[in-house]
């Protein structure tokens, strides 16, 4: 079943054409990555899905209904953790529910525990490392009542190993909660390791260049990252993107 459908979305800021006739969809429970070069308009697309930016044309359909220009229909993990510094971790995690749903402290504490942040629930964000803050930010999204989660390059500021740990953690969380995820990144390896499907965007103005169904079965393990099939698949995508650059 289709959860989110992007229909012919175009957007320009003045002369600057950013999105050009973008079309794709995310199915229920699916993990989809958008892979595009820097500045290709990925955050802009998220702004449109989130109702912050109106597209020049096209529509955004969530569960069969248009959400164009409507805020609060999706759950969002931004590029920076964006935690409220005056709230404890527990209260930060509950923010999404506080805004549009009902608070469930028990579940929040359980999730904090599973994220390896037990005993931090009463700490403030400035006491946490970058990776921990991103985990908190993601838990906040998972606890939010909306069923589709958008993640905008949540791990781009982390070092290689922390990043891999976070990816494994994210897959773990996703497999337990079975939410639909639309994940933005410009890291090919990350996209392939995490997703069911990878959508390649062209450089600006962005349109869908190609879609890849990722053949590796789940649950995925770290060893996969160094296997021949994985590297071969990565190469294929790399060449596709390289081609579009020139």
């Amino acid at each position, binding site marked *: 079943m289709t959860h989110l459908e992007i229909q012919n979305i175009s957007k320009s800021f003045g002369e600057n054409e950013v999105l050009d006739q973008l079309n794709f969809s995310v199915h229920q429970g699916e993990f989809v990555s958008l892979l595009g070069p820097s500045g290709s308009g990925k955050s802009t697309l*998220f*702004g449109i899905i*989130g*109702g*912050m930016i109106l597209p020049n044309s096209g529509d955004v359909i969530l569960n069969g209904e248009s959400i164009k220009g409507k*805020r*609060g*229909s*999706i*759950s*969002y993990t*931004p*590029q*920076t953790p*964006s935690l*409220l*510094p*005056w*709230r404890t971790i527990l209260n930060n995690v509950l*923010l*999404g529910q*506080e*805004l*549009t749903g009902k608070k469930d402290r028990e579940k929040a504490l359980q999730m904090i525990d599973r994220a390896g942040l037990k005993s931090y629930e009463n700490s*403030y964000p*400035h*006491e946490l490392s970058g990776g921990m803050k991103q985990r908190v930010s993601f838990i906040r999204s998972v606890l*939010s009542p909306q069923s589709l989660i958008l993640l905008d390059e949540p791990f781009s500021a982390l070092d290689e190993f922390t990043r891999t740990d976070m990816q494994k953690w994210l897959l773990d969380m996703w497999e337990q909660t079975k939410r639909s995820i639309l994940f933005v990144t410009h890291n090919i390896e990350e996209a392939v390791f995490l997703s069911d499907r990878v959508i390649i965007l062209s450089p600006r103005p962005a349109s869908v260049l190609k879609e890849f169904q990722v053949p590796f079965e789940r649950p995925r393990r770290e060893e996969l990252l160094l296997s021949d099939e994985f590297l071969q698949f990565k190469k294929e995508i790399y060449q596709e993107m390289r081609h579009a650059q020139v």
Partner: protein
Amino acid sequence: MMNALWKQGWRPALVLILLFIVWETSVSMFDIPAWLLPSPTQIIEVGITDWPGYSHHVWATIQLIIVGFLIGSGTGIVVAIALHLVPFLRQATYPLIILSQNIPVIVLAPLLVVWFGFGMLPKIIVITLVCFFPIAIALLDGFRQTDRDLMHYMQMAGATRQQLFWKLEWPHALPSLFSGLKISATYSVMGAVISEWLGASRGIGYYMTLASSSYRTDRVFVAIIIIVALSLLFFLLINWLEKMTIRWRSSGEGGSSDAS
């Protein structure tokens, strides 16, 4: 905490003590008359023995300061919120507010005496005016500096205007509000004393004018010491309130005492 105070404070304390010693010895050495410059020991002595005679003046002034400060900061907060939430109002009045900051409000005091007489009202108006501007401006700036990433997240997450204000903008502006409150706390002491100079039947400002017109310089000094102490006390009180309210800041960025 006490330890840090001692480590930082012993040098200035030493300078002060030296100053008092020089003052004391020169008064007795050069035989300076007490009506011109009393010695520190004389001042302390008068301060203690006269206490029953002037304590009611101190209480009257404290009362005036508290009432004026509460009304002034209350108005400042309400006006800042209104200007922030209604962009048209802000665009229309913000430049005027900034301009009017250059008027020393104290010069309006004689006018207020003409209009409202010598009672509590003109004094409270003066204090309200001096408290109002620093608070309104600090708070408005605090609202305007709300973190853009946090704003973006809250809006994407579907926050209503009310939720944006109470869950993001207001807590975000609290440190700014407190730096405004600290400035106003000292201003309100000054406002109270000056408005008492212009016409009053009690209060430490009134006590001061009485003392100076009868050449009781020792009493003038006592009044000055009390005023300085009151200023300091109010400042520390606000500082303490800030520490109680804003507990989430890391020690590294905790320097909000920029009273400029």
